[in-house]
């Protein structure tokens, strides 16, 4: 009974966020186009040698997703601030983590789709070959996304309620994400380099550990930070 109510709340929030995002026409396609521009800028900035680009590809793709993701995290709670919706949201009964889960779900969908598109474009622009172990690569992508999104949503919630929110989010988020991104980048690079689960394996276990820690910690702490 109670958990059904909570699950309904989670769904309602995720649905609302995704609908809003879809409606604000430029929303999603804008973020995607942004991602592509960033990829192109990287291509220019890192010079024209194909080998150098291929080496940098996995780093560049993850950074692009990070920058584009920050836009999504910022928006996620900013929508609530317009015309005081956050207060209304907080006044609904039910546990606070349900709000967080709903937001997280919406952001996972959003960043997941974004990531697939950026990777598609990145493969073409940076001439990356698809490796044998592509299922493992997919796993790495999923794990990296979960780590990125759980921290991003959490800090997005905090930043949105403070002054100078656009600044605070990356300021808090980027240093925290370094280990996650590093693990994701190195695992992707190893897999793209044809390594089958020897070097990559260690990185993937690390990613998994990060994901679990961050997911649990953010769910637990969300109630405290959103009440204030």
């Amino acid at each position, binding site marked *: 009974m109670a958990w059904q109510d909570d699950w309904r709340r989670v769904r309602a*929030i995720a649905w609302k966020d995704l609908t809003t995002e879809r409606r604000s026409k430029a929303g999603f396609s804008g973020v995607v186009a942004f991602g592509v521009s960033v990829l192109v800028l990287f291509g220019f900035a890192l010079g024209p040698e194909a080998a150098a680009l291929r080496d940098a590809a996995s780093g560049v793709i993850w950074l692009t997703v990070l920058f584009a993701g920050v836009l999504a995290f910022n928006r996620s709670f900013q929508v609530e601030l317009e015309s005081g919706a956050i207060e209304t949201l*907080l006044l609904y*009964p039910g546990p606070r983590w349900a709000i967080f889960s709903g937001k997280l779900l919406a952001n996972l969908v959003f960043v997941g789709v974004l990531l697939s598109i950026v990777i598609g474009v990145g493969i073409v622009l940076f001439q990356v070959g698809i490796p044998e172990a592509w299922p493992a690569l997919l796993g790495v992508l999923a794990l990296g996304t979960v780590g990125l999104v759980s921290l991003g949503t959490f800090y997005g919630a905090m930043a949105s309620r403070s002054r100078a929110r656009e600044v605070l989010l990356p300021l808090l988020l980027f240093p925290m994400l370094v280990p996650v991104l590093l693990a994701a980048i190195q695992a992707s690079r190893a897999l793209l380099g044809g390594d089958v689960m020897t070097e990559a394996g260690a990185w993937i276990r690390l990613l998994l550990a990060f994901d679990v820690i961050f997911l649990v910690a953010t769910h637990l702490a969300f109630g405290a930070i959103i009440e204030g």
Partner: protein
Amino acid sequence: MAATTSLERRRTLAVDSQAVARRFGARWVLRGVSLSVESGEVVGLLGSNGSGKSTLLRVLATLLRPNAGSATVGGCDVVRDPDGARRQLGFLAHAPGLYDDLTARENLRFAADMLGGSDRPIEPLLDRVGLGRAANDRVRGFSAGMQRRLALARLLLASPLVLLLDEPYSNLDVEGIALMNAVLQEHVARGGAAIVVLHELAPASGILHRTVTLENGRLDAPGVAV
């Protein structure tokens, strides 16, 4: 606890604040406000601009923590049992708190889901607040009064024990004011209580049971009958 079952059962106070104090920075806005509201009672909260009326309502609504003192809504302490308090109150703030990119109907649908198990149909509510024709329009283009009407409809989704209304008549036209008063009257008939922030008594004439005035962070003349 059978919170939603019977409003009649509760002979206890609907709202009870004891020496609530709250400051912003170094400035004390509420310096010990004690206010009790019984079931079936509508209290008008008066006071000049900046006297702390909205702040008091936000404390009662669990949105701001008091720096001192305590308050209960429907018997639930707003600090120790905020969830319980939230289930018993409906709050209408200055800002309508709607999602601009959802339609009127979708906004209500969302609120119903969040309230958990509220199965009240939405169409009649929209018709009641006069937004039947705009049900499928996005809220972004709504005028000030239309947004306020939609916020009122959201309030009607649940039947809370306590209504906290911050200047509910502003932006409403004559018909809207009548609607607001009808809602309040039904609420009282069900045994509900309400605190209504006002600057002018005129629109609420015949509704208020008494008024209190907030000045210098304290309530003056509690219990003056209208």
